């Protein structure tokens, strides 16, 4: 039982209950079904922490840096489909959360971030730990609020959850001054509270669905290009996507954000698309006559050179966010709607209108795709003496694929791309990576959040030695909450992707991409109370991976890999999908315009 009676659930009560602002925060979280929050206390949130102290049923995870709290909440959200909740203090607490908020906005992750603020009478006076939180976070949230009246607090909190989780998901911030936390006011539950204007369209126009299935039935060289929207829509969308492929036999590729929505083990799967996508996926995208974009956004990492992007195809674009249609690439048919609802209608119309695929043409298309597959674009030259990063990921995958409970997070860089290419997913919500923002330091705290939600699962952060040092302190969080996360570091001593670009674009002038003073990760693990492992030879890798999995503690595994290895295939910046480099021998001139791109 809760020690504080006002914090227990009172279902269906219409009249406002009287309580303090701090109590309202905790009560609203409970009414919203929140069981975990990630946070860090400070002066301006002490009343909320005090209310939290008296309540049961909400687990608070104390991080070591507010950025870690937000990434952990992202990991939690992405692996569960529920919103992630963060509680931090004013000033530096809020500014430290900004990277995570931007990350969540770019990748459409539902988060509710509660920040403390100095008391209302001190706002604007440069008070201690004051910052303009709503001003700073306005461009990196879906919406944000400063609550100056305790009687608006409950409504704002419930609206915050509604906005974070409906339509295209995203992060929101509710900034709560300390005096509002102390004041007493009326609390209303989430029932009957809806935002005045926010009504995202989730039902697709059926006329466009009819058109879409007609285009699909007429297609000779179709490809499905699916994205994070399928994952965000929920597991039903992934199931329906599989059903659509069952019905049509169309080839399918996916963005980085969409991995797992379609099982990588199935023959229709072409692998990752884009800058480091497979030969077959990119060539099929380039040569197709119908592109069916389901919940992706024509990101520059996918399209390459837009003017040369899939020049001969008609394009269908399904997105829940109308602003994404025709943003980068003009499409022939835009469908605004939720992925699951739209896919369900597509399947229904395909069946009821008795559509058939162009089977002869499709057979030829698959023959062409099989030819592209023969390139085996993910091949690499292995070594007996030095661990190739690709080999390390292959072994990690082989030794874990029999389990049904593997969750992978990553940092950002070469290791992330190798993981996306080589670690194959069969289910959605198993792959958590920073796609849009490309946030080094994402993976370790995200793993904390994932493990918190799935205590018995195998949670692996495939990391680089540079990225992981950005949020390394969260190992301490993992220890505190007995979270046996596995940090699988592909240690090449370089910021590998920076080094790769310097090699290709900047005449091998490796300006400040080499870390001359790396910590001893094994000793570091021990200092945290975790387990440290190191592998330097390919022959010892399997046994060490097995050991990593067997240990019921957080593990830092320092895998010493070839420092010179580059990530291929690669579409050089400014290139088209059919201008891929497969190996360093391909050379590949990069245009001046291409060098300008990131």
């Amino acid at each position, binding site marked *: 039982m809760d020690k504080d009676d006002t914090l227990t659930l009172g279902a269906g009560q219409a009249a406002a209950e009287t309580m303090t602002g701090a109590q309202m925060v905790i009560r609203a979280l409970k009414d919203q079904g929140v069981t975990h929050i990630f946070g860090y206390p400070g002066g301006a949130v002490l009343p909320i922490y005090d209310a939290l102290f008296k309540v049961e049923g909400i687990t608070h995870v104390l991080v070591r840096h507010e950025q870690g709290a937000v990434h952990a909440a992202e990991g939690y959200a992405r692996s569960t489909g529920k919103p992630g909740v963060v509680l931090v203090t004013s000033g530096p607490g809020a500014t430290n959360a900004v990277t995570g908020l931007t990350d969540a906005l770019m990748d459409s992750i539902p988060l509710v971030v509660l920040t403390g603020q100095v008391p209302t009478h001190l706002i604007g006076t440069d008070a201690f730990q004051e910052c303009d939180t709503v001003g700073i976070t*306005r461009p990196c949230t879906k*919406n944000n609020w*400063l609550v100056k009246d305790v009687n608006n607090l409950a409504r704002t909190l419930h609206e915050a959850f509604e*906005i974070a989780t409906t339509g295209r998901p995203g992060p929101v911030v509710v900034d709560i001054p300390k005096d509002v936390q102390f004041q007493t006011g009326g609390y209303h539950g989430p029932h009957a509270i809806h*935002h005045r*204007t926010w009504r995202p369209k989730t039902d697709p126009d059926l006329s466009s669905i009819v058109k879409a299935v007609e285009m699909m039935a007429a297609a000779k060289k179709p490809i499905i290009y699916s994205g994070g929207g399928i994952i965000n829509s929920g597991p039903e969308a992934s199931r329906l996507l599989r059903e659509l492929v069952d019905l049509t036999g169309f080839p399918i590729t996916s963005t980085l954000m969409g991995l797992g929505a379609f099982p990588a083990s199935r023959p229709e799967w072409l692998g990752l698309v884009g800058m480091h996508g497979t030969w077959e996926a990119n060539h099929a995208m380039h040569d197709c006559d119908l592109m069916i974009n389901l919940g992706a956004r024509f990101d520059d990492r996918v399209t390459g050179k837009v003017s040369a992007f899939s020049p001969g195809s008609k394009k269908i674009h399904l997105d829940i*966010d*109308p602003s994404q249609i025709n943003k*980068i690439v003009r499409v022939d048919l835009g469908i605004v709607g939720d992925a699951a609802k739209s896919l369900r209608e597509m399947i229904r119309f395909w069946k009821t209108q008795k559509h058939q695929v162009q089977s002869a043409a499709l057979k030829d298309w698959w023959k062409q795709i099989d030819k592209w597959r023969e390139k085996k674009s993910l091949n690499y030259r292995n070594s007996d003496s030095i661990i190739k990063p690709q080999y390390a990921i292959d072994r990690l995958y082989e030794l874990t694929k029999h389990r049904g409970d593997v969750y992978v997070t990553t940092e950002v860089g070469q290791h992330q791309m190798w993981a996306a290419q080589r670690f194959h997913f069969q289910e959605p919500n198993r792959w958590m990576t920073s796609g849009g923002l490309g946030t080094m330091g994402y993976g370790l705290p995200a793993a904390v959040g994932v493990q918190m939600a799935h205590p018995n699962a195998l949670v692996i952060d495939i990391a680089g030695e540079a990225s992981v040092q950005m949020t390394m302190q969260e190992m301490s969080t993992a220890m505190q909450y007995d979270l046996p996360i596995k940090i699988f570091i592909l240690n090449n001593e370089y910021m590998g992707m920076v080094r790769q670009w310097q090699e290709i674009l900047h005449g091998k002038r490796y300006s400040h991409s080499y870390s001359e003073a790396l910590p001893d990760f094994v000793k570091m693990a021990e200092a945290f109370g975790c387990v440290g492992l190191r592998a330097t030879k390919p022959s010892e890798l399997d046994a060490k991976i097995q050991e990593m999995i067997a240990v019921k503690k957080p593990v830092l595994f320092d895998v010493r890999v070839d420092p010179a290895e580059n990530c291929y295939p690669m579409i050089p910046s400014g290139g088209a999908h059919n201008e891929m480099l497969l190996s360093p021998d391909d050379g590949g001139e990069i245009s001046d315009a291409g060098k300008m791109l990131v």
Partner: protein
Amino acid sequence: MHDTKIKPDNEVDRHTLTVLVDNEAGVLARVVGLFSGRGYNIESLTVAEVDPMARTSRITIVTSGTMHVIEQIEQQLKRLVPTHKVTNWTDTREGAKAGIEREMALVKVAGTGEKRVEALRMADAFRARPVDTTHSSFVFEITGTPGKIDSFVDLMRPLGLVDVSRTGVAAISRGPEAM
């Protein structure tokens, strides 16, 4: 069917957009921040509460861009949570609403003798009325399309123009309906 790619359509046009928003703290910053953050232009901006009961404000923005950019601006504005409605008054697409645009300006001209007389004569022709008069200056109030105000200001320049204050554009639809 469309061309596959968005045309490299370099024709930049001026568009007047009206955004009806909840009159809540920070809503103007949200709208303006969208423009600066995504690299869109603002040529003029007019904002005021228009319905105290419904707590709505009307923001009228004059912007410029290719049709593709303007479409993106409209979509991005609609995406903001406090936005009720977005209308483009410079829309040539099918079904678009026709609108009336007006702007008010206060124009100060200083001078004596022939120039002063000429300024007053010009003001009369433009139906600008003096709202402050001294022996050596006028402040004219003028209402009209932004183009009319531009012309008036240009004419005043050689006649001793010292200061201009413009309200930005207000716009409303023709006919019996609201925006």
